[in-house]
């Protein structure tokens, strides 16, 4: 019985945020379409819009689904429903991460397909790492939002993550084997690239685990 309430709450969140999800996905898909032209300017524009679509969605979801829900006093309404405080927290974690993860997985998968079909496969590792970095940043922001429920702390996390993307991409591009192999016909997963990818996965898992742990220790929900 309670699973159905949890599911209803997740569906409610999806319904409330469907326009943001659809818009970001459409912009991301449009950006991928620009890749198909294989000309320099549309390619750069496509890469930029692709990243912007995912980064904006990654910032909007935690703010809109978690922080604003508290700020707009919806928590008392939701907590009047037949769920426990822990179930409410789990619902928020599931919907916030889910509403980002599904479009991210579709767009990241689409990007790899487009690159695999029409570009040198040497670009696949760096593309994977860059899209993985956006997922990692989202997890940091979403975890901060769920645990702190504070607009200020979530904004700090957004600023830190967004400002670190540029630095991280710059450093990744400067990894010697990346620069050497990005134009190659074969995807080469060097130990260094695998370490970066592993670090991204570790941060994602750590963020999810810490969020669940800290949330389960909360005593007050309003």
């Amino acid at each position, binding site marked *: 019985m309670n699973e159905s309430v949890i599911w209803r709450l997740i569906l409610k969140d999806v319904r*409330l945020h469907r326009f943001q999800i659809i818009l970001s996905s459409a912009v991301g898909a449009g950006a991928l379409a620009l890749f198909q032209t294989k000309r320099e300017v549309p390619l750069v524009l496509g890469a930029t819009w692709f990243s912007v679509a995912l980064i904006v969605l990654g910032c909007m979801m935690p703010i809109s689904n978690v922080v604003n829900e508290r700020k707009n006093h919806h928590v008392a*309404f939701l907590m009047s*429903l*037949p769920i426990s405080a822990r179930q409410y927290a789990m619902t928020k974690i599931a919907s916030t991460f889910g509403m980002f993860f599904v479009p991210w997985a579709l767009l990241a998968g689409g990007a790899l397909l487009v690159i695999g079909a029409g570009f040198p496969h040497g670009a696949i590792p760096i593309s994977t790492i860059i899209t993985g970095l956006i997922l990692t940043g989202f997890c940091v922001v979403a975890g901060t939002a769920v645990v702190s429920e504070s607009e200020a702390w979530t904004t700090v996390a957004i600023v830190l993550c967004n400002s670190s993307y540029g630095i991280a991409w710059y450093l990744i591009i400067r990894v010697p084997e990346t620069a050497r192999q990005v134009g190659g016909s074969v995807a080469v997963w060097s130990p260094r690239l695998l370490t970066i990818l592993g670090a991204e996965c570790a941060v994602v898992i750590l963020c999810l685990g810490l969020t669940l742990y800290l949330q389960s220790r909360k005593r*007050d*929900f*309003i």
Partner: protein
Amino acid sequence: MNDYAIELDGVCKSYRFFDLDNISLQLARGTIMGLIGPNGAGKSTTIRILMGLVRQDRGEIRALGRRMPEEQASAKRDIGFASDDMRLYDGMTVGWHMNFMKSIYQSWDGDYAQLLLKRFGLRAEQKIKGLSHGQRVKATLLLVLARRPKLLVLDEPTTGLDPVARHEILYELTGVMADEGRSILFSSQNTQDVEQISDRITFIDRGRIIDSMDKEAYLERWRRLRLEAPAGVALPALPGVIGIRQTGRLAVVIANEFAPELPSAYESSGARVHAVENMTLEEIFVANVERSREGVTV
């Protein structure tokens, strides 16, 4: 099944600048309890703890026989909760909220919801952001009442409403009690609202319950005596009297355990009794709070 809809036993919660201190109260099934207190008295904190929104530091809580907050998910199937700081989704319509509740509660009564929609002057297609404060409160109560809950917990539901809207809401609340198994805990600063519908009254101030009894008992026991005391006559503090205020020859005596012999006792001491008056719940509340703050148990 026990006889209480709500049982709080020795509930404590400490904040930096406020303590809820040893709150114990019981609400019998089928009754309406008004929880009255000034701003910052602890009414909302008590209700939030009862609803599992805030966890108590100590003490036991049961709602409809279920331990809170441990069993809140199942308890809240039968509890309708609304508070003045509760907000619905601005961008969605009243109808969307009704469908959302219907999808969660099997007990949702669609016909009653339509009836309330008409009585409250609401339309299903109206977005929440287009509603006035009074309409928002009514929409929230509609969502709560149409679930047909066994227990209603309402935290200042009539705050900020005009007299007509307040009357409509109080009318619906009394209608809820047509089913004898239902119970209501209703907090308010408005003693008139509480007096109108409550069977039992609990006064709370500065995180402590200062008094709790049947409304009729309050109104029966509390009296104000207007006296004239000639010079040289000292008014005695007789049993049942909790306050004497004297200005020149005129005095006002407040009794919280009024006995028919009290006026004649003052007459015997040399005073003239001009009037014995009933007190309103608001006057009883203010006297209770003042006495509590002076450190005297009434």
